[in-house]
């Protein structure tokens, strides 16, 4: 699963490029995250007897599911060499919206527009898609850099969330969402299945569709994509909408998973999702990486977060360690770009 998205390098090509050393160098962005994952897993398995249990594997899978759903869309964005900082805020507002359109218990003191479950879900999806379209419009038509545009959207989405809940907490969401977010089938949580299916879908789109190829080409050389007659703006706009919709789905299921919808509930998911994509080895410069990398990145973060709980470490030190791991991943990410350029010489 780790290298699922990378096209295997044909032997002849490896030979020409200078043998095994060159192959390793050019594949560094795929190898390094995978080694990190193996190292962390081995470390925690030795350090704590409760880590390497089947139960705990289930825990880790569940813990990374919401991040995983959000990270699918973000992978598309980062492959295009753009960024989306509004993912967590859009997840939050979509989760709140679906609760807003669901009848709450009488003790919940919240403005509430009850609707049938399917309508609530569709309206919530429409909301996140709309916010994604606004991101796309700002980026491609007006020309605002995605970093700034999505920073503004982060505030806008947080603002809508605040207006809807006004400091209160809602609990009810449509039954379908409740099931997918907190139910399980044959012992497997539905949210893990949804995350796996969305990751698979993202992988299929990136690997086997024309749109997926365009995403890689736009990320690899935007000017060349334009001179090849691709509609670059349409592709960039599409990835922003995909990112917003994935965030929205993650937000709805997350609300069901946590059992409540409230302000600032998803704040940590912004950094976690970006970290998962980048730690996994998808290039911040675009054009390299994919869902396979994101999956490895998710597990690196999941194992790290979960493992640090098992080894009884100072919870403040945990934050620092996460920061250091992210920094190391960034160094590898930038370094891998250079190594690959060298290997191509």
């Amino acid at each position, binding site marked *: 699963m780790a290298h699922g998205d990378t096209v295997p390098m044909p032997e002849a090509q490896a030979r020409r490029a200078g043998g095994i050393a060159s192959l390793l160098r050019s594949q560094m962005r795929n190898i390094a995250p995978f080694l990190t994952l193996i190292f962390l897993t081995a470390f925690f398995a030795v350090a704590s007897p409760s880590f390497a249990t089947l139960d705990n594997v289930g825990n880790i899978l569940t813990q990374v599911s919401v991040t995983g759903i959000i990270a699918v869309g973000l992978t598309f964005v980062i492959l295009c060499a753009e960024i989306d900082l509004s993912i967590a805020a859009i997840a939050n507002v979509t989760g709140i919206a679906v609760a807003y359109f669901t009848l709450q218990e009488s003790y919940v003191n919240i403005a509430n527009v009850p609707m049938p479950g399917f309508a609530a879900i569709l309206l919530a999806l429409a909301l996140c898609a709309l916010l994604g379209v606004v991101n796309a419009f700002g980026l491609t038509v007006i020309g605002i850099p995605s970093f700034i545009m999505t920073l503004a959207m982060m505030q806008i989405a947080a603002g809508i969330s605040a207006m809807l809940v006004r400091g209160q907490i809602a609990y009810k969401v449509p039954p379908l969402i409740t099931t997918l977010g907190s139910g399980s089938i044959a012992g497997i949580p539905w949210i893990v299945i949804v995350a796996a299916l969305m990751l698979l879908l993202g992988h299929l789109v990136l690997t086997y569709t024309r749109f997926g190829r365009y995403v890689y080409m736009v990320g690899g050389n935007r000017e060349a994509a334009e*001179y090849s*007659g691709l509609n670059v703006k349409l592709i960039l706009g599409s990835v922003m909408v995909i990112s917003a919709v994935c965030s929205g789905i993650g937000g709805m299921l997350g609300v069901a998973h946590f059992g409540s919808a409230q302000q600032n509930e998803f704040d940590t998911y912004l950094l976690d999702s970006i970290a998962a994509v980048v730690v996994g080895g998808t290039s911040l410069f675009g054009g390299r990486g994919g869902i396979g990398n994101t999956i490895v990145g998710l597990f690196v973060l999941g194992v790290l977060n979960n493992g640090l709980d098992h080894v009884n470490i100072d919870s403040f030190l945990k934050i620092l360690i996460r920061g250091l791991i992210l920094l190391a991943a960034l160094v590898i990410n930038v370094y891998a770009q250079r190594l690959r350029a060298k290997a191509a010489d």
Partner: protein
Amino acid sequence: MSDSRPPLLELQDITKSFGGVTALRGVDFTLRPGEIHGLVGENGAGKSTLMKIIAGVHTGFSGRFLLDGREVHFNSARDARAAGIAMVHQELSVAPDLTVAENVFLGNQPTNALGIVQWRRMAREAAEQLKRLGIDADPMSRLGDLPIGLQQLIEIARVLFSGARIIILDEPTSALSPPEVERLFAALRKLREQGTGIIFISHFIEDILLISDEVTVFRNGRKIMETRAADTSKAALIEAMIGKGRDALEDSYTHDITLPAPPTDKPVVVEADRLSLARNLKQVSFSVYAGEVLGIYGFMGCGQLELARILFGKLAPDAGQLRVSGEPNRFKSTADARRAGIAFVPESRRDMLFLQEPVYKNVSISILDRINAVLLKPARERALAERQVEQLQIRPADVEIDLGLLSGGNQQKVALAKWLSHPPRLLVLCEPTRGMDVGAKSDVIQIVRQLRDKGIAVIVMSTEPETVLSLADRVIVLKRGEVVREFAGETISKDRLLEAA
């Protein structure tokens, strides 16, 4: 000006090679104080190499370099600047977001004892200097807000008033309007009176004859001729530049070529109707017929690059209309142009190729939607790419290899190949043979001819007369954004082409 004064700058027997290619062979060059020395020669004749040696950019060469009669060795452009040598390069190198005054004093702002920039003094002095060039610009306005010609003049002003004793100007007039050229020349003459030595490189022979005292002609890395400007003519200079009747190697393009009559019986594929774009293009009109190669020739900055980008939907014209098969068309994106059957290969290969992707992905990128609306069909992509690789004889013949591993000529063929699996109606090529060896060049020429014979309309844009002459059935000449001449159904030669531009 008398020849008894010691020369400001003297180069003796300069030879410079890059790899195995000799760019300059045994060149002597002398610049006297108070002299404007015009330099002409074709692209690649060695002018720029010589100037870069003088400006300290190129340091490894053989021969003697004397400044005021004393031999010097520059290790960098910094050394040359310290010795009073300044150069204005062909491409603008200004800071558009800084003010006019900051640009005039770039890297040299007046400061007080504490190192604080003295804004008022800087603005006042900048205004004074610009006035000497006849420029009336607010020194505190943002440079990028001014027209390009004015920006160019301000960059020149920076160098002219930097106190340099030797000033090199590389194509300074290509972006200037006639009154701006006048102002520049007036300023150069004033500097000449003060004893500054000026080297003036230009493709515009009229400008050279108007401003220079001496003129030197380069060809193939050699100095061919040095003469007083008053004693020569445009025709004589062009003849010396292209070596008519003397250089057997080049004679294929110095003879007359008879162009076929325009195929007016064939349909017009694309018609440009009074296209205008800012300062770059003025009411440019032309038609291109199916099955012909239209050459568009002009010097750097003549508007070719902008025209090509309008044809491919990358730029929108300010005025005028583009008609494709008779229908007015306003491309919103390059994708619109591609769907209308227009293909484009820009002057810089890197701008249209994915060097880190395999050859087959580069070849198939523009036709993926014709293979399948949604899904990729890698087997078909590879098959299509393999056919192109075979037809165009791309080496190595391996479609899986990363494109970056191919040679420049083969990369250029891939750039063409991406448009050939589904032939376009109009193919726009910018500098299609630039920097290629002879073999790759003739391959590209063959490919273009075959496409033409299949009924595709081709536009070839180049600043090299040979490229246009070797490919075109009909030629139009662009000069400062305007069509100044069309050659059709008549004899044409390199000197006639150069004279028209």
